[in-house]
């Protein structure tokens, strides 16, 4: 049986439709480029490439994060296509909620943990092939084309931020490729950030009304996040290691 090729169906698409269709990836970025409103919203210009002048980061207010809320985790899972398959020991977790009780004072807090996008990331240092890398704008990623699945980065990461894909995967999100035998972690929703957007977790956190997560350019003194960081005390996790994480927590 001969299958009908797609083009027979698509002939009637208008020119606009067609352009949208073929530029599925690029179009939105182009729109972002020409639309001043989108640009203003996140205090930066969408450039063709990752901007070395920027450093994307997160500020998480632990006091605003609710222990029973999992919105950021669900949003990340939906956005990037990793999911609970019922094998907690081998399932990937790009972001997770951690509940803490202070040993001396008994204070209870809850917070989201993900890749901390360190400036001096141990995962990048130890990766034998250079698959772990940091973009010019500070986002730490795994180039899965070069990852051989040795898991040394998982040994080196102080935050347990990385997961190894233990099973063959199908039907990935087209913007978040992931596959068996490679290591992965939070990408800071790089596909959204490159279009001028913000990570799915931050968006979801905002929608719940908790607003515990803030995303922005740490290098831009006028950005909301930089202003907040200047005003309030915050810490990076494992600051003793001097990795200068791009994710910072306050009220911890």
């Amino acid at each position: 049986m001969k299958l009908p090729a797609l083009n027979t169906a698509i002939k009637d698409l208008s020119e606009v439709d067609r352009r949208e269709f073929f530029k599925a990836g690029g179009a939105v970025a182009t729109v972002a480029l020409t639309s001043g409103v989108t640009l203003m919203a996140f205090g930066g210009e969408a450039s063709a490439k990752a901007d070395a002048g920027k450093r994307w980061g997160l500020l998480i207010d632990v006091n605003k994060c609710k222990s029973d809320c999992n919105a950021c985790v669900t949003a990340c899972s939906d956005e990037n296509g990793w999911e609970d398959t019922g094998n907690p020991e081998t399932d990937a977790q790009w972001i997770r909620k951690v509940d803490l009780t202070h040993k001396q004072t008994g204070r209870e807090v809850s917070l989201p943990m993900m890749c901390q996008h360190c400036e001096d990331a141990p995962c990048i240092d130890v990766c034998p092939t250079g698959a772990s890398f940091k973009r010019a704008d500070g986002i730490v990623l795994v180039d899965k084309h070069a990852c051989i699945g040795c898991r040394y980065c998982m040994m080196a990461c102080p935050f347990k931020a990385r997961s190894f894909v233990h099973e063959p995967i199908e039907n990935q999100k087209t913007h978040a490729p992931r596959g068996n035998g490679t290591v992965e972690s939070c990408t800071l929703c790089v596909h959204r950030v490159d279009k001028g957007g913000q990570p799915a977790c931050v968006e979801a956190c905002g929608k719940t009304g908790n607003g515990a997560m803030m995303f922005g350019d740490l290098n831009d003194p006028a950005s909301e996040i930089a202003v907040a960081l200047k005003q309030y005390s915050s810490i990076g996790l494992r600051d003793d290691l001097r990795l200068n994480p791009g994710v910072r927590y306050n009220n911890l």
Partner: protein
Amino acid sequence: MKRLFASFLILIGLMGMASAGEIKSSLAPVVPKAAGEAHPEGNEFMRINHMKLMVHDRDDTVLLGDRNVKYSLKECVACHAVMGPDARPVSVKSDQHFCRTCHEFAAVKIDCFQCHNSLPDADLVKKLTMLPQKDRELAAYLKEVTE
């Protein structure tokens, strides 16, 4: 190795034949037509160089964050999607999949789809699967008007 070499020879031979005239081996793969306009570089060029273009632009996207690249696997998959009997695009599991038709013939293994989805974006699929419906409506309307 021998098999690879033989396939390579056959492929070269086929390319020669294809460019020389209409003669085609019965073994040649039936390459499904793509949805969009033909590549301006020409099919010959793309057959020989598609992997270089994709690797080059993939490095630009992944490493440098360049989202305005000319070639991307996502777009290859979308434009070259082949519809299955259920009028939905087939995945790489089907031997009708665009990439598979040639790669199997050439005995060149690709591992793109261990990580990348071999199906177009869900939104796109929805749009595409809606089209025949639109076509039918249109045809019905035209029929109505002309009658």
